[in-house]
């Protein structure tokens, strides 16, 4: 069986793409790494819709933006026999892709692949960030959505829309937050004013954001602005015991056993890079992004990329992009005409522009501080898997190492099991400043398939390469 299309990821972009692919009559499958559709934003949406009916408190905690996914999810679950959960895609090539599910390997043939694998949290390399007790703020939210776990007296440090959202969700759940260490640089407020005019078109978002911050400030939680340096400390055991922070030149400390870090999200580009799609460095969003046309078509003929995996635009934007990408794929596959596609997508582009107009304001306001992206303390671990420190990177560069890819041989940075996802951006930016090159010229690790660890058993079970084994 050869499919017209395989969609990778079932977040807002992937689900919207699937609904449109069904309407267009495409033969397709949607592979999802998670056990349920929803992606990160609408994680566990099915259970939480049901729970929300009897529990207004849960509805209040997770909020209207979360439950806005209900309609999309309800349409998605009506699709007949297309969703494959727990499927970890590790290689895409022209006409075929490979994935593992429950310890077995599978291959599936497809004319076109739509990567909708979303974003991940930007690395936040500070001293002590590998201690147990230090986690991302995203992880706090994930545990809140499923299975509704939370921890008292945590310190939240960082910046960005998601950062404030998670804190407000904690507060609504009645969980005491010990302190908020806000790392948004003061200068950003002035810079963001320049973007305010176009941001006014997204007044709804502005008001929502202001309301969130007002609610947090009204809660009497210790709120410290202008933090420019952070450090996680432990006692004799490997366990976080305190966080120190610097405002101006003054350093103070707070005792805590739980620290949540967050400074924005960036596209998860490993699969697209391993599939040889061209990427560029976005100075606005400070991340690598795939080179795409307005439809999401990549430099590889058989691959389109959509949603936050292409550039950060948020859930609503991702839904629109997912739908747009599939309309264009239908043209590529000769299922509809280009003029039909243009008619079908006209309204979607109008809505998309509103999302796009608002984004530069957020990008400028929450642009993370240089010192929190490019760590200066020599003992700071950059690559968590291989425990490569700033000092190791500096040493390698002074020994003649020219870029991230060579750095692998010099230091093993990026060669651990996360395959560079947690250190890649830091390494690109740090290497660029040490070699006095631009980040664009410095480049990134060369990412190769398989992009996830695969066992020999999974490879060996690919014994019928020409048969699709539907494992839904």
């Amino acid at each position: 069986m050869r499919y017209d299309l395989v969609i990778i990821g079932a977040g807002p972009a992937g689900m919207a793409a699937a609904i449109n692919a069904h309407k267009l009559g495409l033969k397709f499958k949607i592979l999802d790494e998670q056990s349920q559709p929803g992606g990160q934003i609408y994680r566990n949406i099915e259970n939480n819709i049901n729970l929300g009916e009897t529990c207004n408190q849960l509805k209040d905690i997770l909020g209207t933006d979360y439950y806005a996914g209900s309609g999309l999810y309800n349409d998605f679950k009506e699709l007949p026999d297309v969703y494959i959960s727990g499927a970890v895609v590790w290689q895409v090539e022209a006409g075929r892709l490979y994935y593992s599910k429950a310890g077995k390997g599978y291959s599936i043939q497809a004319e076109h692949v739509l990567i909708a694998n979303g974003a991940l949290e930007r690395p936040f390399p500070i001293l002590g960030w590998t201690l147990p007790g230090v986690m991302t703020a995203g992880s706090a939210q994930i545990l809140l959505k499923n299975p509704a776990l939370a921890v008292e007296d945590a310190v939240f440090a960082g910046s960005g829309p998601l950062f404030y959202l998670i804190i407000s969700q904690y507060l609504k759940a009645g969980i005491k937050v010990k302190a908020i260490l806000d790392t948004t640089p003061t200068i950003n407020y002035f810079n963001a004013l320049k973007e305010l005019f176009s941001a006014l078109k997204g007044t709804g978002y502005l008001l929502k954001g202001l309301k969130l911050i007002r609610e947090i400030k009204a809660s009497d939680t210790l709120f410290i602005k202008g933090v420019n340096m952070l450090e996680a400390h432990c006692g004799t055991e490997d366990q976080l015991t305190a966080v120190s922070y610097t405002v101006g030149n003054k350093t103070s400390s707070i005792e805590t056993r739980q620290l949540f870090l967050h400074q924005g999200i960036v596209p998860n580009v490993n699969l697209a890079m391993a599939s040889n799609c061209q990427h560029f460095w976005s100075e606005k969003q400070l991340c690598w992004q795939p080179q795409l046309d307005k439809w999401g078509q990549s430099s590889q003929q058989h691959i389109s990329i959509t949603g936050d995996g292409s550039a950060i635009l948020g859930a609503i934007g991702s839904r629109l992009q997912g739908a747009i990408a599939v309309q264009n794929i239908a043209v590529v596959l000769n299922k509809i005409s280009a003029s039909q596609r243009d008619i079908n997508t006209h309204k979607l582009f109008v809505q998309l522009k509103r999302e796009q107009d608002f984004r530069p304001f957020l990008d400028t306001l929450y642009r993370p501080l240089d010192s929190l992206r490019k760590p200066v303390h020599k003992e700071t671990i950059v690559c968590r898997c291989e425990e490569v420190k700033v000092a190791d990177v500096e040493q390698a560069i002074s020994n003649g190492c020219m870029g991230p890819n060579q750095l692998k041989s010099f230091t093993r940075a990026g060669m651990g099991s996360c395959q560079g996802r947690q250190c890649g951006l830091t390494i690109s930016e740090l290497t660029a400043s040490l070699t006095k090159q631009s980040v664009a010229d410095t480049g990134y690790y060369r990412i190769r398939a398989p992009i996830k660890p695969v066992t020999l058993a999974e490879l060996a079970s690919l014994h019928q390469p020409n048969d699709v084994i539907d494992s839904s």
Partner: protein
Amino acid sequence: MFKAIQKRTSHSDAESKPKYVTLSIDQQSYQIPEGYSVTAAMLSIGHNSNRYSPISGKKRGPYCLMGVCFECVCQIDGIANRQGCMTIVASGMQIEHQQGGGYIQEATIIQETTIDETASINLTLEEPKNAL
């Protein structure tokens, strides 16, 4: 320590009680609600560390909870390097802290899974055709 948030439902006894699975974590038996990930289960009993680093030997715990960072890998049912955050708990599951990269004995477990010889022969024959 991570705890379940107290949900106030509109009609108190209407909320169906969660079903539990019995599993072991470091040879100790626990009752964990269905649907928890292995990492959520470990956090809920107060374990915020699941392995020792293969480089420094220091304790490591979960970080991203979404399958990206591979910090939460542990040994599940005898197989090392499994992502706790991406694995849903099951009855009888045996979860253990992982030492470094995982013990070599795991290799014998892989051998026990169903690999027949024809499978590997087919793979080597088919591979060149499918290569780019």
